[in-house]
């Protein structure tokens, strides 16, 4: 059963309250966790949030936007761009359908999180509907706020298990005047890793630093004042210590697009594995047999695409003391490898979803 799209926060609250305590799967655009093809026979009701959409407050001078959860990320990004602003954590647009609620619930950041931080660093307030149909607010619409528990932080990465995100307030930044991407194509993964490490440690104020495993390609993006980019690019190229390609404009956008995980097949699973740069080389070596890998945010995260059974992926992660989660695929949201300590998480979850409805 699909609960026909509530279009306001009030009707969202009502939909959750009226269907209590039956199990509920929250759906955004379905780009991470595909909506069941046959919702009528799905074991649990699916709550479609896409109609709860729209930007409810945006004053560019404030650098704060409040947006309903069903709003497509693309729509939000366009609205900000019209005022010379952007989402600094650079979320992958993930197709026209991906929603703001899905972005928060999956905790997704893109390559640009390297410079100013990830989605967790820009959520300043939220409202969420709990399992009993109660609307709960935390934070607010100001960038600095120390009043009350910061529940909105816990919604980042909550995977639809803590409640239905109704709206969020986000800090946004002025979009950099210009960008330029320096690309190093290594002869081998080892050469690419060396270039990646040199670039990472060179204090170049990079906007993004990614490494694509299969093609042994390192992509470093600079962002800032147009008249400073020549000098900064020259330093970056020197630090790379390799022949490089430089991309700007459309070619640059195209480069990041072709090198994103967007091209990975829908079949199988995309797994996100947080890592630390010092372990990057060894982790890539361990994961490579499972499928193609891409490191992002200066070696802080590895994305793995695997067609192997998730148990096998989980076993490898566990053996190397790694934790991960499926971010795209039929089992999106599933945790793999080292499992977190449950004591605090369980108490938070029991408070928001006492009946264990959210699946």
């Amino acid at each position: 059963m699909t609960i026909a799209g509530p279009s306001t926060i009030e009707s969202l609250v009502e939909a959750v309250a009226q269907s209590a305590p039956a199990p509920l799967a929250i759906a955004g655009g379905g780009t991470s966790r595909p909506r069941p093809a046959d919702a009528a026979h799905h074991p649990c009701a699916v709550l479609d949030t896409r109609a709860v959409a729209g930007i409810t407050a945006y004053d560019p001078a404030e650098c704060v936007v409040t947006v309903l959860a069903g709003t497509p990320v693309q729509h939000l990004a366009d609205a900000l761009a019209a005022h010379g602003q952007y989402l600094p954590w650079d979320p992958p647009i993930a197709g026209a359908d991906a929603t703001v609620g899905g972005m928060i619930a999956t905790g997704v950041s893109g390559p640009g999180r390297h410079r100013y931080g990830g989605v967790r660093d820009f959520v300043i307030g939220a409202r969420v509907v709990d399992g009993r149909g109660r609307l709960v607010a935390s934070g607010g619409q100001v960038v600095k706020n120390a009043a009350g528990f910061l529940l909105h932080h816990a919604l980042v990465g909550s995977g639809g298990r803590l409640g239905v995100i109704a709206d969020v307030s986000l800090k946004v930044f002025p979009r950099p005047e210009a960008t330029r991407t320096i690309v190093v194509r290594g002869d081998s993964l080892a050469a690419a890793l060396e270039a990646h490490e040199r670039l990472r440690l060179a204090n170049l104020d990079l906007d993004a630093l990614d490494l694509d495993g299969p093609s042994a390609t390192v992509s470093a993006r600079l962002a800032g004042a147009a008249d400073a980019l020549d000098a900064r690019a020259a330093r970056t190229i020197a630090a790379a210590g390799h022949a490089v390609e430089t991309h700007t404009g459309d070619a640059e956008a195209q480069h990041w697009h072709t090198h994103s995980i967007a091209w990975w097949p829908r079949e199988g699973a995309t797994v996100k594995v947080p890592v630390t740069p010092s372990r990057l080389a060894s982790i890539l070596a361990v994961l490579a047999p499972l499928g193609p890998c891409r490191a992002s945010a200066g070696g802080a995260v590895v994305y793995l695409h695997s067609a192997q059974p998730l148990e096998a992926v989980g076993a490898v992660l566990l053996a190397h003391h790694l934790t991960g989660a499926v971010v795209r695929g039929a089992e999106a949201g599933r945790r793999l490898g080292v499992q977190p300590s449950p004591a605090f998480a369980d108490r938070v979850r029991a408070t928001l979803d006492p009946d264990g409805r959210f699946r």
Partner: protein
Amino acid sequence: MDLATALAAIYPPDRLLTRTSALAAYESDALTAFRTRPLAVVLAETRQEVIDTVRLCHAAGVPFVARGSGTSLSGGSVPLDDGIVIALNRLNRIVRVDPVDRIAVVEPGVINLDISAAAEPFGLYYAPDPSSQSVCTIGGNVAFNSGGAHCFRHGMTANHVLGLEVALPDGEVVRLGGDSVEGVGPDLTGLFVGSEGLFGVALEVTVRLLPRPEAYRTVLASYTSLQAAGDAVTRIIAAGLLPGAMEIMDRLAMDAAEAAVHAGYPAGAAAVLLVELEGDATQTDAELARLRAVLDASGPSHVHVAANAEERALLWKGRKCAFSAVGRLSPDFIVQDGVVPRTKLGDALAAIEELSRQHGVRVANVFHAGDGNLHPLILYDGREPGALARAELLATDILRLCIRLGGSITGEHGVGLEKRAFLPEMYRPDDIAFMQRLREAVDGRRLANRGKMLETPA
């Protein structure tokens, strides 16, 4: 075995304080209006001692308050008369600084500035910089999600804490987050930060370190009105600039700071705006040209770019000592902490000026303009009958003003004891009820920092 005996089995006598004279130092924090003598103070030196103490308190049903340096300005670390204080100043080892992964793992009693000092040989630093950073602890910073002058660009404590080891209020130990800046699953580290000690005691904190910016460009602009200084901040953001810090001081605060450290602030200005650009040297130079153009168009009476590191340090010294310097102007003062949307700074300042006139109480203004965080310093003389009451009334009016303008009752000092009554003015009853439920779920006996942030329900 009673609690006292059990504690004596953990702590040697010199680290278990029960005598009135020894307890005196722990009766209050930097908000001296609240004062309570605890049953006992334990000076923990190891994590295990903290865990054992929390477990004992839980078993005995005795409330406890974790304490760092006691610089809380909201009464957050004030003890309970039937409770224990767990002092963490001696649990202060820097476990490791990892220059490759750019993280530091520290115990909760480590002083904020000591993290940067340990990271400095590697060209790294810990970004959140409360003005109290040379004394306050990372544990206190975590509890209050402390800020500083760089929050608009760099965020608050929550944005720099990657992982925590925590003793929950029943003594169960959990790890939240990890070593990476990226995570999977709900950001529970981010939820623990700012919980004001109600979710238990942080035993170990993993923070990220940032590379020291290659260059700083620090500019001081003075104005003939506070409003003009506030407007300049809006223009800077509108021009697409993203300074590391933007700070404003009014005449009273400036004069006090000038008298204290001779920072070179222009005499006679109504307000000064301190703007600092940071980052790659060519980039900051390019930004400086844009910033100058914006400032020149904002009607300043004077613009000065710090010529060297010494000048920069002096300008900052004046700002950082402003609180204490105001002590020269008045025997007593209240430091208020509230937030308004940045574009409403001008309105807020005009309203505060008017309130100050109405109440006949002087106010000096120092604030983090980049993020709308006001710190009105309300001056009074405690020896004068009724003066404190008038000052408190004004402080209250300012908080209500912040709520009315769509801001917050605290940007960084926390709710503590001081602002408990205002939390329900800022949030709806359902939101407060949720906070109470969450607190109950984490701490069914309400032992951890009982009475702070949330009023104890009848």
